[in-house]
């Protein structure tokens, strides 16, 4: 088995014109800022949903993230990607709302790394294309359910690294956590999601 990176080939988070758009927005061009918003609104909404698990909170967090990024645009120095900067604002907004609903919920820098056994307990044969055995809607429900059961601190790392294809360093920067925490949480997220899918895909067929 070879180590191939399980990434999509379609990532185009930063377009060439982005620095110019940000410069225009900083100079007061509202249309330029609206163009930036239109590029990232879907991503930021999904990110907020991943953390809050609540559509209303996700909308609030997304809205506030864009309003704050506009208000503080002059502080963006351009030494990181705009998206990374925006993600950091959005994650903080989403976590604030999550904590309101779940006061026991943890903060981003709280260690979720434990010494528990990572070794999967159940491993069943999935067959060659387990996802193809489900209708699109059914598969989407399976994936949503698996993601929703994930600890939000793991889910946000999975979202940024695997779905948004941020690098380990960018994810660490966006979340304000260490690189080793990103790696550890990503491993846990991937293993937990595999385990959840195993319950559906195991033995090869939907029942």
């Amino acid at each position, binding site marked *: *088995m*070879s*180590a*191939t*990176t*399980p*990434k*999509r080939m379609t990532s185009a988070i930063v377009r060439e014109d982005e620095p110019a758009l940000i410069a225009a927005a900083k100079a007061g061009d*509202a*249309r330029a*800022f*609206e163009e930036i*918003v239109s590029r990232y*609104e*879907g991503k930021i*909404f*999904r990110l907020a949903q991943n953390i809050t698990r609540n559509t209303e909170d996700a*909308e609030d967090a*997304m*809205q506030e993230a*864009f*309003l704050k990024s*506009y*208000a503080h645009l002059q502080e963006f120095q351009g030494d990181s990607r705009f998206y990374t900067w925006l993600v950091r604002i959005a994650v903080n907004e989403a976590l604030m709302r999550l904590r309101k609903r779940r006061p026991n919920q943890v903060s981003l820098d709280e260690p979720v790394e434990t010494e528990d056994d*990572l*070794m*999967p307990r159940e*491993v069943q*044969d*999935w067959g060659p294309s*387990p*996802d193809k055995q489900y209708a*699109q809607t059914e*598969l*989407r429900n399976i*994936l949503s359910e698996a*993601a929703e059961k994930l600890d939000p601190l793991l889910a946000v790392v*999975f979202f940024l690294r*695997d*779905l948004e294809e941020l690098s380990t360093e960018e994810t660490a920067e966006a979340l304000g956590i260490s690189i080793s925490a990103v*790696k550890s949480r*990503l*491993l846990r997220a*991937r*293993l937990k*999601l*595999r385990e959840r*899918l*195993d319950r559906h*895909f195991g033995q090869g067929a939907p029942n």
Partner: protein
Amino acid sequence: MNCDGVIRELSNFLDGELDPAVQRELERHLGDCGECALIVDQTKKTVQIFCDSEPVELPAEVRSRLREALRRKMGPSSA
């Protein structure tokens, strides 16, 4: 490398971030251990399946409320 070692290095392996010597050791283990080979393959598939799933569109009313909030913030000169 034993099974625990494979699991610990699984993400680095999938992301192609392993030292070549460690990677060879891990691949040797996968050749001998069917269970670890399944776990590695399924974890890779898990990531791929999530990546391939169609993202849910931003609901139109959510987008429109966001635009309204931005317009209020940016003032009447905005589009």
